[in-house]
Every structure is written in C-alpha cells, then in structure tokens.
C-alpha cells in the first residue's frame, strides 16, 4: 500500500516535471548548450594554453620573447586571480555589451579564456618535466629550437600532463553551469526553469546532477584509455 502510494507520487512528479508541456526539452536543450560551450571553450583553452606555455617556457629557456612573456604572466595573474563568474559577467556585460554575438558564444569565449590560464600552467609543468637531455639530444642532431620543441618535447609533455588536463576538462564542464547568470539556458539553468514552473526542486536538480555525473564518467573512461595507450608505447 505504502509502496504503491510512493510510486504513484513519484510518477506524478515525473510527469509534472518532464512530460507535461514537453518540459524535458529544457533538459535536452540545456545539455546541448552545456556540451557546446564546453567543447568550444576547451578548444579555445587548449589553443591559448599551448601558446602561453610555449612563450613562458621559451622565455625561461632562452631569454627570448620577453614582451610576450610579460603579457602572458599578466594574463595568468588576472585570470587565475579573479572568479570565473566575475570574468563571465565582465565579458558579457562590459566587453560584449553592444555586440550581436550569440550569448552562448560569448559564454564559451569567457570559459575558454579562463580555462586557457590553467591549461597553460598544466602544459608548462608537462614541458618542464621532460628531461633536459631530451632537448640536448635533439639540438645535438641539428634540430632547431622549434623543431625540438614540437617533435621531441611536446609529445612527451602532453603525455605527462594528461592526468592534470583531464582534471581541467572535468572542472570546465561543471563550471559552465554558471552560464545561467548571463541567461544562457544550459543544463543547470534548464533544470532551474523546470523548478520555477513546478515548484519541485528535487526532480530536475537530481536529473541535472545525474547527467553531469554521466558525462564525467564517460570523460574519465576516455582519458583513461588514452593515457593507457600512450603509456604502453613507452614500454614497447
């Protein structure tokens, strides 16, 4: 009797929150937006991080690129020293205040710029962890600095940095949930809209949490497989 009541209750709630008025669409559209922001921001973050790390390491190794290094350090200080939400609001309401750019793109840009700072330091750590003898061997064969960097140091650096990069990917995915502050309807915002319609917080928020968790689990699996492949090549 009690169980049946609970079940009826549950299915009613489920109907209210997800089926009625096609409310599940808030979740699926939100998921699509979340993934779009994450992927665009990730690509941007990797590109920025790579360039910044290259500048920093080259400056520390050779003393060149001095002005670029100063800019890179300023970027790292500002981005890592201020909250991502403040950066998002600033970019949305100040820098792109009068722009016709889709807001989802503005949000992705903001997250990419933010993530780039952390990825830069992850890459830099990976590059510094490669034994100095590797670059000496490359240079002694007549490769120039750039060739040595690209073909010898970077591949090993990325492999070393993979666990930390995975961490950053996961952080980035979850951090996109603050995009709701600039009215981007990503997954968290979608769940919140349902809550405001149904006055039921448990159902939509649980659904959102489970979806985030599911994506993270998939991401962990993929990264683990990639890491395993790269590590195997070392010993074979």
């Amino acid at each position, binding site marked *: 009797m009690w169980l049946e009541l609970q079940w009826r209750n549950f299915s009613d709630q489920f109907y209210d929150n997800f089926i009625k008025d096609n409310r599940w669409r808030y979740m699926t559209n939100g998921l699509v937006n979340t993934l779009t922001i994450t992927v665009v921001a990730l690509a941007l973050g990797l590109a920025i991080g790579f360039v910044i790390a290259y500048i920093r390491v080259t400056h520390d190794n050779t003393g060149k690129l001095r002005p670029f290094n100063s800019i890179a350090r300023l970027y790292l200080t500002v981005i890592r020293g201020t909250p991502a939400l403040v950066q998002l609001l600033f970019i949305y309401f100040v820098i792109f205040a009068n722009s016709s750019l889709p807001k989802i793109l503005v949000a992705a840009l903001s997250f990419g710029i933010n993530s780039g700072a952390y990825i830069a330091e992850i890459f830099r750590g990976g590059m510094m962890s490669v034994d100095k003898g590797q670059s*000496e*061997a*490359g*240079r002694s*064969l*007549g*490769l120039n600095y750039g060739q040595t960097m690209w073909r010898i140091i970077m591949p090993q650096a990325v492999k070393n940095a993979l666990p930390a990069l995975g961490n950053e990917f996961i952080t980035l995915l979850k951090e996109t949930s603050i995009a709701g502050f600039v009215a981007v309807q990503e997954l968290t915002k979608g769940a919140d809209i349902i809550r405001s319609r149904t006055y039921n917080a448990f159902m939509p928020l649980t659904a959102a949490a489970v979806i985030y968790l599911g994506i993270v689990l998939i991401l962990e699996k993929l990264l683990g497989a990639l890491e395993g492949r790269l590590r195997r090549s070392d*010993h*074979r």
Partner: protein
Amino acid sequence: MITVKGLRKRFGDAEVLRGIDEHVEQGEKVAIIGPSGSGKSTLLRCLNLLETPSEGEVWFEGVQLTAKNTDVDRLRRKMGMVFQHFNLFPHLTVRKNITLAPVLLGLQTQAEADENAGRLLKRIGLTDKAAEHPGRLSGGQKQRLAIVRSLAMKPDVMLFDEPTSALDPEMVGEVLDLIKELAAEGMTMIMVTHEMGFAREVANRILFMDEGVIVERNTPGELFGRPQSARLRDFLSKVL
C-alpha cells in the same frame, strides 16, 4: 678540424674551464681524462655549444661557432654527440629515433632514411627491434642505438660524453667495440671517458684535465708511461 682558443666557462661564481687551447685534426681520436669536476664534460659540451662559452672561441671546419651570426644548428649536423644517459626519444620507435632528424631536416626522404636505418640497425644487431620503443632495450642496446642515431646524420666528428659510465659492467664491452669500429673506419672522435684501457687502446692522443685546465697532453704510451706532473701521477695511481 676543431680548434679551441682561450676557452673559459663560468657557472655563476665557479669557473669550470680556465683557459683551454687545443686543436684536433681530422681523423684524430682524442680522449679526455681527469678527475670528476675537472671540466672534461663541460669542455666537450662547449664544442657543439650545448654550453655557451663565457670567453674564447670554438672553430669547426673553418667556421667560428662562437661568432654571433653562425648557424649553429647547421654545423651541429656534422657533429654527432653521444651522452652518458643515452637520451633516446622514448615516444618514438627505434627506427624513428634514427630517421627523425635526417627526414625533418630535409636531408633524406623517409624511404631513404628508413633504408639507412635498416643498415644501421643491422650493424648493431637490432633489426628485430626496429618497430619497438627504446624503453624495451637493454642499456648496451640503448647506447649503441644512440650512437647509430648520430651516425645517421653522417657526421664529420663524434663527441662521446662518458658513453659507458651509466652502463652495467657486462654491457660496457659491446658499446666500446662499436666505438672502436668507428675509430678503425677513420672517424674523428673526441671522447670523455673513465675507461683508461679503452683510452689507451683507441686514442692517439690523450688530454689530462684538472681544475679547468689541460694539465698534460700526450700519446697514450707517453702519458701513461711517463706522466710529467704530480697531479697526473696522483690521478693515475688512483684509477689504474
């Protein structure tokens, strides 16, 4: 072929090389011996500018390496270097370790380089390891691979920086044998080594260094047979 004039190298306050003048002719095999900390490796690394000299000049095949506008990368192609810790590229296969530089620098096509690598690997008996990664090789195999990796660039001179110091004793022989073969083929070589027997056998000239200067230079027979300075006598009494 290689000339060093007034070479000095400082690391901070410590002066590691304190005025080196030396000349190496084509075809010579020069061994550098001396106590640790005497500056042997630093001298060798100054020859291809892995260390930048603080003062003085290094000349290679008539070009001053230490001059401002010299294309050092181009000259390094002709100076092979073998390191104590091999420094093979762990992310590349054994074959790719050999072919990377000649192909990347446009000296050989991938097919030519592969063929050349095949010959080199056959020479050191590692043909069946071509597709594996260096992590799976023994120390002796690694160092022999490092040597042929340098040879793939067809260098005019080979620099050896303690090539057997990181090896298990039973693997020293196979590496020294390969170096002796190169010597017999007429390769110009400069080697920093702790293997006195090897230096005596292969080198036609030996430099004894101590505290950043070349204290004695002589043929192996004279240097080991009639050491002139107290420092060399002292050193030989400890290592022989």
